[in-house]
């Protein structure tokens, strides 16, 4: 009795139901609005996309250098005026302080490589793994010889209680 209940519970339809529930919940969560961003939150978001011009590889958000403080103040002014979106503020700061303060590499020219290469490597690795599995599958075609069977039988006799996971 218990086993049939268990079986029913864990059947495909129940799993489907679970999947639909998960997707629905995720959709709800992903589409609902987060609380309003304060100006300071916006400043944080924008300064994370800008590089400190005088320090080595830190963002304005992280850096405590005076040059970063200047950029921060400018960002704060822009945000306070409320006229530009985050992207526009980033572009504005980029044009007034020089392109070097923009942090994330652009997706054009040589810079695009940094986005393309990871995907390419992932595809290559996955393809390589898939090919290996195919090769392994082919190799499995080999027939067991009588000697192999005898060896297996002998080992099984030695270890009778071997109930492996499958």
């Amino acid at each position, binding site marked *: 009795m218990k086993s049939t209940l268990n*079986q029913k*519970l*864990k*059947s*495909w339809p129940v*799993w489907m139901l*679970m999947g639909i529930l*998960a997707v629905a*919940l*995720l959709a*709800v*969560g*992903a589409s*609902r*609005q*987060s609380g309003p*961003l*304060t100006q*300071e*939150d916006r400043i*944080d978001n924008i300064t*994370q*996309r800008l*590089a400190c011009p005088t320090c*080595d*590889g*830190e*963002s304005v*958000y*992280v*850096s*405590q250098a005076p040059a970063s*403080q200047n950029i921060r103040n400018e960002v704060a002014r822009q945000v306070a005026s409320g006229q530009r979106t985050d992207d526009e503020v980033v572009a504005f700061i980029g044009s007034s302080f020089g392109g*070097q303060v923009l*942090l*994330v*590499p652009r997706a054009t020219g*040589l*810079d695009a*490589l*940094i986005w393309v*290469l*990871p995907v390419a*490597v*992932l595809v290559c*690795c*996955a393809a390589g*793994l898939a090919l290996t*599995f195919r090769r*392994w*599958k082919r*190799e*499995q075609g080999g027939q067991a010889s009588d000697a192999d069977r005898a060896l297996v039988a002998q080992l099984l006799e*030695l*270890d009778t209680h*071997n*109930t*492996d*996971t*499958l």
Partner: protein
Amino acid sequence: MLAIAGVSGSLGRAALLVGLVGAVFGMFASVMGTRQNDEKVLRLVPRFATLCVVATVSAFACMEYAMITRDFSLAYVQKVGSKSTPALYNFTAVWSALEGSILMWMLILAVCTVIIAWKYKSKLTDPLVAWAMATMFFVCTFFFILTLGPANPFGKGAAGVLDGPGPNPLLQNHILVLFHPPILYVGYVGMTIPFAFAIGALITGRLGEGWLLETRRWALFSWGFLTFGIILGGWWSYEVLGWSGVWAWDPVENASFIPWLTGTAYIHSVLVQERRGMLRVWNLSLLIATFSLTILGTFLTRSGVLNSVHAFSNSDIGPYLLTFFGVIVIVSVALIGWRGEKLRSPGTIDSPISREGAFLANNVLFGVFAFVVLLGTVFPLIVEALQNRQLIVGELFFDQLATPIGITLLVLMCIAPVLPWRKASGELLRHRLFWPAWAGIAALILSLAVGAVGLAPLLTFSLGGFATGAALRQLVLATRRQGLRGLVGRANGGMVVHIGVIIIAVALAASNSYTRSQELTLSAGETAQYGGHSFEFVRFVEEKDDRRTSVKAEILVDGDGIYAPAIQKFTNMGQNIGTPSVKSMFSKDIYLTLQPPVKVSSNQAKIKVFIKPLMMWLWIGGGLMGVGTLLAAFPGSRRKPTDPVSAPIAQETSA
């Protein structure tokens, strides 16, 4: 006084020379002994190792002595020593710049060498061990050369210097400077041991399965320290740097993270080798990659080709490290080409939907992750070389790529723990994953109920619940069968580590996605509300000693505790260092920083408040990872190699 002072420099240098001689002789003794099968020569090997360690300990002691006695005749003491540095930070000043760091590396390396030499003393007649020892000595030799040449800590300084600036202010601001660097270095340098055994296996063309177990244990040991060191580094960053984050994808951080990733790949895929005897060459390659990436990372961050807030100094050590890296890679690739076929196993992996398949998918993901981090770290170099243009890769790049990789890893952590070896059926998965999957749904509902938004964090929370369910399932089955012993061993300890990782992933997702901040300008006695908490500015407190002045702003948070973010000015460096103050709770941290400029006379403070959910769970997860690693390092249940690995699942399959 000066006479003694001069002595500590020359003594240290002499000690390093003796160490170099010991390493070179040790290397020759190992190679000659094993080639001529001469036990008498081999018996000398541990003694040379002892010589190396005595020499490095003496050199390190000389350096500490010079630092503590403020021996300004040494260039290094002039650089990082100061009469006004407090004793603790003066002690740690030894590793606050390049030369001393390399000396510490040397010290840990020599200790590793001597441990291996004495532990396997009776087994040195095994060529695999002898070649591993030779490799250890070879690496030692290289580092002795570094400490005698380009990273010489005992160089004479300019005459007449009577005081120095002391270490970088960031390195004399928090007690963690005593723990984070040495622990991280133990992990970093410890990777030399599995590497040495990998080289030994390649040279002898033989993989004793007993040595595999030893190698795995040493790799796990180093991995554990590396993990612990990285987490301590995050904590330090959080407590000291004042931008409320733990990880900035800074080149030095990346240099420690990349070997961690390949090391993590190894400690997973080695289980396939233990169980099935497969993937031998692949595992050796991962060990070699891990070690060579520690050298490459050191090159990138210490040679000045990449700048970083962490680097703390540049030098002409670069060409040495790059050459060493090149030698390791070329020799290893040649060895794999030469011996690889001999080590290759004839078996095959039956199905991608199996424990083996999951480990391979894990390896792909960790490999890609390591590649992404490495690419992001060196990309500025590539662009500069090709287009002579400066470029900085920001945290957002890493975050954007690490998020999908991390989520995919979580998916794997949901499924892999329940997968059997060889082959799994859909029905089996449906049964075993049922309750873990519901745990995921429960986590999703819970996070929606507390107001979580956004696809990536929600996926993290729900998959976190799922993966925790899968890990707990394994632990419950194991403890039900074996009692508390079920928590010990690589698979079950590994599950504890998984739960720690999941907690960290959830904490990171929550704190990265939902951190909110506000700047409050408060006059003395004024109270402001933000994020459901009240902040009352009480007063400024000024402190002054001969090395710094500090201004603290005392803030009464929620009426029941004073928190005092500060700004310190270090007189010698003229640098302002902000020190945050954090109120930690299980649900969130309140992180306060004092914003410059501070005018004490105005009695008005600009305070930045960050509300960061679940931060404390980062450290709890880290602690759990440590516990799990310890459990995994102990030999598991004393089962015969022929016994089944997984718990019996009779009720379930019959169900």
